[in-house]
């Protein structure tokens, strides 16, 4: 995977586990000098405000550490619910699946001069 970290969330996480993942991931980004992080949430059948905030925080912390985060695989029912709940995950880049997320990261890292917003569309 080179400069990327791939995280697949496969269990229904309780809040402390979600917080621990956020911290672990942030530490790992610094430790391995990752340039991109892919978080696969295709196994999650809900994203509530806590998990949503964890994704937004992780993405913000990664950005400060010079890494780009892409959240991939959100189920349509989860997306519908999330928006109705009031969470729009602004600032979090998303892609349909791992492959498209990887493309997004490669584009972002391959062309360093590219404006961040052009490199990854929500």
């Amino acid at each position, binding site marked *: 995977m080179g400069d990327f970290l791939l995280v697949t969330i496969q269990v*229904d*996480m*309780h*809040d*402390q586990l979600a917080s621990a993942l956020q911290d672990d991931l942030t530490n790992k980004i610094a430790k391995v000098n990752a340039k991109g992080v892919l978080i696969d949430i295709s196994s999650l*059948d*809900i*994203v*509530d*405000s*806590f998990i*949503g*905030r964890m994704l937004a925080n992780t993405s913000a912390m990664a950005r400060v550490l010079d890494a780009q985060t892409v959240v991939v695989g959100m*189920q349509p*029912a*989860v997306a*519908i*619910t*999330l928006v*109705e*709940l*009031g*969470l729009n995950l602004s600032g979090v880049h998303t892609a349909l699946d791992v492959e498209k997320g990887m493309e997004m990261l490669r584009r972002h890292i391959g062309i360093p001069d590219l404006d961040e917003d052009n490199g990854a569309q929500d």
Partner: protein
Amino acid sequence: MLKTETISVAASGDIVAVRHAVRRQAVKINLSLVDQTKIVTAASELARNMLIYGGGGEVTLEVLQEGVRQGLRAHFVDAGPGIPNIDLALRDGFTTGNGMGLGLGGAKRLVNEFNIESAPGKGTRVTITRWR
């Protein structure tokens, strides 16, 4: 009212148990996947509120039958400090904790019926219903 199930919420792992129980009942009455997701998410928010602000409490689930239609109702009852200003608490972005202030208002948007009773010192009771 067809059947009830009660889950006590005293730790963050219990929120997961509430999500699973609500999902199980929602599947049983054949709610659509989107509606299942909505009521499970609403329940997750309300169970967390109950734990953080109410010091924990109990969730009771009921399957409703009204003529030909079925519904799932969940009660969230705590004996915590209560909510002094319910209108304010329902407003998006308002929080007395460190969350995002989406729990109550967001949960309300995700269900067909939403009822809240609370007063300082009297605890809080929130009831949500999603009909098929």
